């Protein structure tokens, strides 16, 4: 497992991207998804990556999460240079240090809500009793204490996304990445979910980065980063 450096100090960066480029080949034509993005995220920040479709916000999120590689520049997460990690080490990093919340919830349909949350702890090798209590605690914090035995198909979209958040935070990750987490939700559920994320950030100090094109999301985040054509155009967290 790749050990992360101590990142709890408010001043130390959890994420540091320098000149990150990501180029895809489309019919032998290079398409620049990221054109030298620079971004530093400190512990305890709640950052929204906004921008239109194709602006590179999801790509940057995937690069930070170790789901996608990059062609130039450097990315360090928790002080670890992602370029130096093997695919297996990247998987370990994701398992132990990064929580993911996806647009499509991506819960395991054959497992109950509690089992979905426990699943990731089981991958980490956490003992069964501890697993159960931690999963219940995470579900309780999402207001789902009574729904632990239900399978994803028996839950509403908002409830499923809460289970996904419970799964993402149960491992107490250094960083929580959310890719369009409210895209499939109605406005009321969106507000409820964003309040949950804000509470996680404000009460537990969890560092959260979310990609979104929804202006409501930006109202809840403490820092807004706007991207366009693979570049960071505006970052209200950067002082000149």
């Amino acid at each position: 497992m790749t050990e992360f450096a101590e990142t709890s100090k408010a001043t130390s960066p959890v994420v540091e991207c320098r000149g990150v480029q990501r180029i895809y080949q489309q019919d032998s034509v290079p398409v620049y998804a990221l054109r030298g993005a620079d971004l530093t995220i400190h512990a305890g920040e709640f950052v929204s990556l906004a921008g239109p479709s194709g602006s590179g916000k999801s790509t940057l999120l995937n690069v930070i999460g170790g789901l996608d590689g990059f062609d130039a520049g450097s990315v360090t997460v928790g002080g670890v240079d992602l370029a130096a990690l093997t695919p297996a080490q990247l998987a370990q990093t994701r398992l132990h240090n990064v929580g993911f919340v996806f647009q499509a919830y991506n819960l395991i349909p054959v497992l109950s809500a509690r089992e979905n949350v426990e699943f990731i702890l089981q991958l980490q090798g956490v003992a069964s009793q501890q697993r159960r209590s931690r999963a219940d605690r995470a579900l309780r914090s999402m207001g789902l204490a009574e729904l632990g035995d239900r399978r994803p198909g028996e839950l509403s979209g908002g409830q499923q996304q809460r289970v996904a958040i419970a799964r993402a935070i149960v491992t107490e990750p250094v960083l929580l990445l959310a890719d369009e987490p409210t895209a499939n939700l109605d406005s009321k559920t969106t507000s409820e979910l964003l309040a949950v994320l804000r509470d996680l950030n404000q009460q537990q100090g969890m560092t959260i980065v979310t990609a979104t094109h929804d202006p409501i999301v930006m109202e809840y985040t403490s820092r807004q980063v706007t991207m366009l054509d693979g570049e960071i155009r505006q970052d209200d967290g950067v002082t000149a």
Partner: protein
Amino acid sequence: MDTLVLLFNLSLRNIVRYRRRNFFLFAAIAVAVGGTTLSNALIRGWQVYMLETAVSALTGHIRLQAPGFADDPGLDKAFAADTDIRLGEDIALAGVAQRINLPAVISSERETRGVALVGINPAQENISFYRDFVMEGEALTGPADGRLVIGKALADTLQTQVGRRVVVIVEDADGKSRERGYRIAGVFDASMQWPEQLLVFTGLQAMQQSLANSRLPAPVTEVSLVLQQEENRQLAQRQLASQHPELVVKDWRQMSPQIAEIVDIVDATMAIWFVMIMGALTLGLVNTLIAAVMQRTQELGMLRALGMSDRLLLTQVVLESVGIMVVGVVFGLILGVAMVFGLGDGIDLSAFSESVEAFGMSTLLRPVLNLEDLFLFGGLSVLLGLLASYFPARRALKISPLMAMNR
């Protein structure tokens, strides 16, 4: 271990989740395995019948004769009836039969034929086909019974019947032809032509008295042994050969090489049959499992995104594949065993009796269930399932978490 339980649990639930697709997959595997189990049991039944026929045709699993007797049979190549036959305690005997088996000429008032005159102790012949003969008239009462029992086909040829007298000419121990009149005690139906045409039985003791000389007062020309387990054949053969270096000790494979070859061919046929059926099934399984993996690209990609290692992902896909195969094979074996028991009385092939006998088969084909076959078959099927899971597993490992997320 905990993780393995998790993966097993996950695999099981995924199998249940796609129950319709997997039902047809289970059914295909079960029908293939069940059908192959039945056909193998029928082929094995044919094989066992041939082996029993070979062994019961006065050869036994092992037979002892004097050197040169097989090429030039005669009483001058006999040995003493009290020759000690002893096997190790680990080899159980089903029975031993001593005989005099000599070429002879039998004549009725109308016809003359060359036959084999066989002196037997009827009580010892529970290891040969003699016990199964359907007798018209009387059977031999014991080794001292000096009457004859002849085959139905021979009786027809000689135009004789029970109670009539025939004359048998045979060479004695001194090399002189002895002619003796016998009364026919019984006519047997062997359900095979050659024993009925060729074999003529009389009491061993009576034959010894009429043919022996002072040098060998109680001669026999052969001793046949049938073992409880055929697998002990070679060990028993070695033991007897070392005990009796003055005799030739042969097993049934040496005595009936054609049948031995057929038995081997049957084994090979079963293997080829298994490979063909299961090969086709495996290809189908691979195809379905790859489709199943493709159907779950997003889910598997998500597992990778969350940090599931390649090893665990591979294990999960393999567990699912093997799980499907195991369930299908178990149901298939149950189906196959049920069909075998259902056909326990055998399949009546008497409508095709001529062709069937040409293949050395009985007109009643009884399936024989061999536990070893079941275990081997079941084990190999699961192994094939394991191999079949390689391709979908490899496909699963190629799924990028990012690709899965973007679907």
